[in-house]
């Protein structure tokens, strides 16, 4: 009677149209460009994806909660600035490579703090997260400019800027960090109490309150997680560039939200998962990489991505209409 349990690959793809799409573009670029199907290029894709991917993990939690965080790009820039600048503070001058430790810790703390402030305001004032984080986006970006004096910081410690080139066996460290975080967030969301509550709060806030979930603090935790991930992403990005620029992470919130939505997370909350988000992030990564290899001008990438976003969401609606009780709503 129950055919809900036997999940064939085809069925799985229909539920997660984005992975079908990932497969498609993968095959497409493998055929179209001789440079694409190359093991080094895959490493590239993973490293390039990791920046947006890390933030997208946090955004998935926040969006399932029924919130959104527009301030991630600015948080990323602020954290990167701290990470690079603190290393050269006089008090750490004699620490050698250990300089990196307080710098990175402080940068990550700043990220968590920004998230906590966002979450606290959303909790206490009840103002929409969209508005709160829009304000935070402007405010934090302003802080970055104040802090950096509108110029870039350069990393003086070479161990720092070499970090991004490290590999463990065949895997670049940055990709490993991203994959590890993906696994952890996936487990948190799908297997822990916090994850369960994330769905409940986004799905029906009133029912969640009635079930004894403290919705405010719960949402704040998710904002802190995304703050942390944005900061981590900023740190890793600055190791790749060996510098922190005040404009770092501009528009990243849009890329991140696009990736998460492509992955099937609903803007209204209550629905979504990390597997989908990973698909969304990879889709964008492969597309940008592939078109780059084929020397398609960058602005076409936007046009194509926009069309794909709409197409994938349309397919999702077609295949998964039963989610609305099969009604034509």
């Amino acid at each position, binding site marked *: *009677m*129950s*055919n*809900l*349990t036997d999940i064939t690959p085809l069925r799985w793809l229909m539920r997660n149209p984005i992975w079908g799409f990932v497969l498609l573009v993968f095959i497409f670029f493998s055929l179209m460009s001789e440079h694409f199907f190359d093991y080094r290029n895959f490493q590239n894709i993973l490293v390039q994806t990791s920046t947006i991917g890390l933030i997208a993990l946090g955004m998935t939690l926040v969006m399932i909660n029924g919130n959104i965080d527009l301030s991630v790009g600015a948080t990323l820039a602020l954290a990167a600035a701290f990470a690079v600048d603190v290393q050269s503070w006089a008090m750490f001058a004699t620490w050698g490579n250990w300089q990196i430790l307080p710098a990175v810790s402080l940068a990550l703390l700043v990220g968590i703090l920004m998230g906590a402030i966002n979450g606290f305001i959303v909790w206490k004032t009840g103002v929409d997260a969209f508005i709160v984080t829009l304000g935070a986006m402007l405010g934090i970006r302003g802080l970055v400019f104040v802090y950096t004096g509108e110029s870039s910081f350069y990393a003086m410690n070479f161990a720092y800027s070499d970090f991004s080139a490290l590999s463990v066996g065949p895997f670049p460290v940055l990709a490993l960090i991203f994959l590890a975080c993906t696994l952890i967030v996936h*487990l948190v969301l799908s*297997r*822990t*109490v916090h994850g*369960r*509550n994330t*769905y*409940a709060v986004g*799905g*029906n806030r*009133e*029912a*969640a*309150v*009635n*079930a*004894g*979930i*403290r919705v405010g603090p719960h949402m704040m935790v998710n904002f802190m997680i995304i703050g942390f991930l944005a900061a981590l992403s900023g740190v890793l990005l600055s190791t790749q560039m060996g510098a922190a620029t005040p404009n770092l992470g501009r528009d990243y919130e849009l890329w991140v939200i696009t990736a998460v939505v492509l992955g099937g997370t609903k803007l209204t909350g*209550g*629905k979504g998962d990390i597997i989908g988000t990973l698909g969304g992030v990879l889709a964008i990564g492969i597309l940008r990489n592939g078109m780059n290899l084929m020397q398609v001008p960058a602005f076409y990438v936007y046009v194509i991505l926009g069309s794909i976003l709409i197409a994938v969401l349309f397919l999702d609606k077609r295949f998964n209409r*039963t*989610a*609305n*009780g*099969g*009604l*034509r709503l």
Partner: protein
Amino acid sequence: MSDQQEPALRLKGIVKTFPGVRALDGVDFEVMPGEVHALLGENGAGKSTLMKVLAGMHQPDEGQIIIAGKPVRMTTPIEAKAQGVVLIHQELSLVPEMSAAENIYLGELPLKRFGRVDWTTLFERSNAILKRLNCNFRGEVTVANLSIANQQMVEIARALTVDARVVVFDEPTASLTDAEKVVLFEIINDLKARGVGIVYISHRMDEIFTLSDRITVLRDGAYRGTLTTADTDEDEVTRLMIGRSLDLSRDTAEHSLGEVVLEVRDLSCAPLFKKISFSVRAGEVVGFYGLVGAGRTEIAETLFGLRSPDSGEILVDGSPVQINAPADAIKLGISLVPENRKEQGLVLSMNCRDNMTLPQVQNLTTGPFVSSGAEIAIFDKYRDKLEIKTPSWRQTTRVLSGGNQQKIVIGKWLSMHPRVLIVDEPTRGIDVGSKSEIHMLLRALAAQGYAVIVISSEMPEVLRVSDRIVAMYSGQIMREFTAEQVTEDSLVQAISGIRTSEVA
């Protein structure tokens, strides 16, 4: 009913399947003009689905819809309405930010040139309809500001915008007061007199027997038969519906009462209720009876930390407590099964199991992770106890039938093993079989030492489950009865605000 007459509507061999569920399995159904045809069946039997097929919201896999002799295909509710078929939903489906008038004419607003809304006509017409329904509000008010019962009236008013051939009422009385029910029944009889065919879905036998001319019974999606109301009785209908008779006697098995678990002293929250004092002992069921709007739900919400009282004390086990949030109440062992289960109790996008274990997942972990096995065990237990119909625990609760959604919420709080269980209208929308299951379950819980508070607007229900009955009228306790002293008359007097010489 003359046999040669053409039915206003006929459904032939309707089949509708959903993934994992055969919701309708060759159902036949017909309504004559000027007939009230009741549709009965357990929760999940397929009543609402059948009506949604009829109203163009679902496409049947097989079968025919015949209106006035002609087979038709309807793909949207607007098309169905054009054919004269109007469905009044089990769940309210109004736009809360719009005015009542706009809601009544939603999708078919009267227009002036250039597509501008003709507000004068709109308000004129909708006010005329509201007047016919004896409503004490006007079409200009925003729906969000109306009480649930009045919102229901707006929903009903929608049916009167067209010359309906068939009007379907899907459990319309669930949230109406007795006075409003009378109005509704007048409307139904009025429609009937004008030759409209009525389909009436309800789990309340008394209504079915006063209103209907014929009764059709569904069971597990299959057609079980049609009876003429005048020639049958509740027992026969029940047997057709659930396959057995029901024992409706009161469970009189004595069990000893324990200490006072919950005590409330002079609790007030203006303007909802004032000077409320009562106590509940372990092993006792206290029924709160009164009209819809008497303040009972609000008291329950206060005890559960959803409202803050102006004054008064709440004592648990004899010591005063502060309850500022549901989390506090849950810690003290107080649970509330809310009245509005869909809005307050269910996360529709989550599956059955997760919904049921939501308040206690933090206690069901192994290491950092939630233990799926423990959760499924709880779900299975209460699925069997409450006879919840779902293909598996993975089903999202959105697609469950209305009654089964309610059962999930009830199961959720029962599985918490609270010390004080407050249930608000526990059997609203629940079929007769499960209703008596729930009554027995409440008695059994008391026997095991739980303190139970039952809020209900159904007299037979309070009489059947309570050891003591608190009668409320407009925010005040009028009288307290023990199960031995109570009579229907004195209860009715008390809840209508008539004070007798005796003071409780």
